[in-house]
């Protein structure tokens, strides 16, 4: 089974984010960048399918050269190959543009399953997987929390967490899946894995290599534009309730009922 996993490099969710003064982006100085957590789960899903059915796991990313590090992490987890599309003409591209670039790469690779994270923790848009399925003409199942591939590897039955319950969906392969973090527990890259990943070559492609132009996928083709980033409002200071236990409990109950309206 040939599996393609899409990977994005994002700021560590625990790193403090500073927005550039003009609001056009985030200040990357000193920022820790990691593989998007959801993509770790996607990589894990791919590796488990390979363990079950044999075949290969190929990682694909679109991003600046530094995104190579995120791919290196996936290789160290055990993926076979990695491709990075890096092209300055992609600055300002929107999600549909990125999905088209990913589709162009994946069309050149054998793929029985394409696996993406449900979303990336930086943009929170959750659009790439769905758009990519359309561009590839594949059936899709998004937000997969449980994955069962039939013994012959011809399709999957998946559980999707939906409001108030579970939706069970069947998709024939080749298919595109986007995965929830509850799907699995990603493995740590092993030390031998890290040493092997060091020796692997990460292919870097430009738009030209893919037969695409900036006009088709770059900022000119973008159908949304970023207006401004702004930091969340500062958190208000907590309130300390004074008095003995009885009074304090009464005050907290009153607060939960009347002000927070959660009771």
């Amino acid at each position: 089974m040939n599996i393609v996993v899409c990977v994005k490099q994002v700021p560590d969710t625990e790193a403090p984010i500073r927005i550039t003064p003009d609001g056009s982006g985030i200040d990357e100085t000193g920022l820790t960048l990691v593989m998007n957590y959801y993509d770790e789960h996607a990589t894990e899903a791919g590796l488990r399918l390979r363990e079950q059915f044999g075949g290969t796991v190929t990682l694909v990313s679109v991003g600046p050269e530094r995104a190579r590090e995120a791919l290196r992490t996936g290789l160290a987890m055990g993926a076979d190959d990695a491709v990075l599309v890096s092209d300055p003409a992609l600055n300002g591209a929107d999600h549909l543009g990125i999905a088209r670039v990913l589709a162009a790469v994946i069309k050149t690779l054998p793929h029985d399953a394409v696996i993406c994270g449900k979303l990336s923790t930086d943009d929170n848009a959750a659009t790439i997987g769905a758009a990519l399925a359309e561009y590839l003409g594949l059936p899709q199942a998004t937000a997969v929390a449980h994955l069962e591939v039939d013994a012959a590897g011809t399709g999957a039955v998946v559980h999707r967490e939906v409001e108030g319950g579970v939706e069970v969906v069947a998709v024939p392969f080749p298919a595109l899946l986007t995965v929830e973090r509850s799907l699995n527990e990603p493995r740590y890259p092993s030390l031998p894995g890290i040493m092997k990943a060091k020796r692997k070559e990460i292919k870097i492609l430009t738009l030209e290599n893919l037969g695409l132009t900036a006009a088709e996928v770059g900022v000119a083709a973008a159908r949304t534009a970023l207006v401004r980033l702004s930091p969340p409002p500062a958190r208000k200071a907590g309130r300390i309730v004074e008095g003995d236990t009885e009074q304090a409990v009464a005050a907290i109950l009153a607060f939960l009922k009347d002000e927070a309206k959660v009771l």
Partner: protein
Amino acid sequence: MDFQLTDEHRMIQATVREFATREILPRAAALDHSPTFPAEIIQKAAALGLMGMMVPERFGGAGVDAVSYVLVQEELARASAGVQTIITVNNSLVCDPIAHFGTEEQKRRYLPRLCSGASLGCYCLTEPAYGSDAMSLQTSARRDGGEWVLRGTKIFVTNGVEADICIAYARAGPEPGARGISAFIVEKRFPGISVGKVEKKLGIKCSSTAEIVLDDCRVPASNLLGEPGTGGKIALSTLDGGRLGIAAQAVGIARAALEEATAYAASRQQFGRSIGEFQAIQWMLADMATRTDAARLLMLRAAYLRQQGTRYTREASMAKLFASETAMWTTHKAIQIFGGYGYNQDYPVERYFRDAKITEIYEGTSEVQRLVIARHVLGKNVIGDS
């Protein structure tokens, strides 16, 4: 001069930091309060390639360099010095001598299982009457046909309870001192070996420390490690690597103490402000940070020299000596910064303090490290040893 870690060093460090923070740290206090062997953690560590880090890949190891090794040991010890002890002994004191001095057959038989976590190793040098003076050990080895027969008692053996593969040192020839000693790979399933008294300790409690009794233990001749009479050399060169692991353990403990004390100094309020605003506390933190960094640099230098294939006995001793005394000093100061809260078990600093003490004792006491260093400073014959 280039002070940068490589990309692989940083990736290995980050991976093991995350592993240790998520898998070991949350269990460290419980493993200290009710000591049990952390079998599950050791299996996970093995899956990451941490049990035979410097063993070549073809024998199942991770094949990483000595700098990676100490970086990883620091991360493990920062989470739990007890867990790290178990792992560093398997690496430095068991895998290392087999990888360096073993025959191809011995390497193939023992290294893969020591690396995979299927087996655990221990190192049997110390005897009741011979600690610092280990080269006078009296356990005997007598040849009997195709076997060696080992007789004697080893004490304070880390992993002694759980290990199934032991490196044991015994006197196989009439020569006094180091020259009469041979090293053996002894399996626990061989007849005549048993576990005796298990120690109750001040710290590193989840790592067992046991007596190993060799009562006419029969060891196949093919399990002699190295040439007859080279056991002393093997023991000492193994300890150079071991001391790197202990230096890293001490650096990890010191760093843990510094991290906890720094966070506490920022949050604890007295006299209307955080105690970290008092210069007395700032100076302690500054000294803790400086000494910890100095210890880490000595550790990295020794590891770097090993990687270059240069002799690093002096540097390993310096790193072990300075790092262990730094761990002791830093954990002592951390308790001071915590005040009364540091003296009880709700915070981890009292554990760090108890764990730190062992680093000044095993794999050569601080006095023995000074002896080794002085020998290099003064030249061999000035000390008055034979």
